[in-house]
């Protein structure tokens, strides 16, 4: 049976998915950000110790050592981890899918305080505290 894959961006944005749809987008954005960041991070770590690539390594370093980037990537990682735990549990025990919305609220209740403390520390360090 064929599936239709064509959904325009306009239709996608108009889709009223609410909370679960938001986690879907954040999970994707977070995952993509992580795989790109970690790949560049590993390459920079390698190039830093090579005579031909030290300058490029330092260049990539300065991007992810910037506190604004860290604020972004910490949110990506932490949300992906917490949301991934929900997906794993609900997929491996499909009966629990009934409580998906409660699980998403629980997710935010874990994310907000943990990210809040990390955010406070990163910003405090950035401002010279």
């Amino acid at each position, binding site marked *: 049976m064929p*599936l239709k*894959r064509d959904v325009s961006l306009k239709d996608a944005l108009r889709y009223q998915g609410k909370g679960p749809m938001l986690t879907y987008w954040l999970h994707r954005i977070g995952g993509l950000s992580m795989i790109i960041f970690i790949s560049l991070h*590993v390459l920079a770590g390698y190039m830093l110790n090579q005579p031909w690539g030290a300058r490029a390594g330092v260049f990539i370093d300065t991007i992810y050592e910037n506190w604004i980037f860290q604020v972004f990537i910490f949110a990506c*990682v932490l949300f992906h981890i917490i949301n991934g735990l929900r997906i*794993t549990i609900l997929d*491996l025990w499909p009966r629990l899918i009934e409580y998906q919305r409660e699980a998403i609220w629980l997710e935010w209740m874990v994310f907000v305080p943990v990210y809040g*403390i990390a955010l406070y520390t990163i910003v405090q360090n950035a401002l010279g505290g």
Partner: protein
Amino acid sequence: MNLRTAPQRGVNFDYIMWIYTRLSALAMYALGLIGIIGALIMGARTDMSLPDLMRWAFTPEVTHVLNTNVANIDAWRTLFWRLMGSLLVLVGGAHGYHGLLNVLDDYVKSAPWRLFLRYFIIAIWIAMTVVAVYVIFTS
């Protein structure tokens, strides 16, 4: 109209990677927990901030400790931690690159291109894993 055949039932690449994504997530929680417990034993309780601890748990690699208050990094660069870091790279790399493939699959409409991307990303995954393990063992 852009059509594709629906996923097949039974054991195939998509099914194996679907279950792998879930199981590798569980494995990474375990590895992260070992990283956190190990760091707390080695002095993170007083010498590390929460973001530092999270960074270490995410990949237990000794350069992640350099900007903290930990004075002696010998305990943080043992063979055990290098193996833990490599394990995270192996498990997490496959998880992450498959996720990338999954997202691309949703937006690339041509079947030959999707097949090409699958092998292209597997090649990148192998290359990046080799580089990452090399970096972990030489840092």
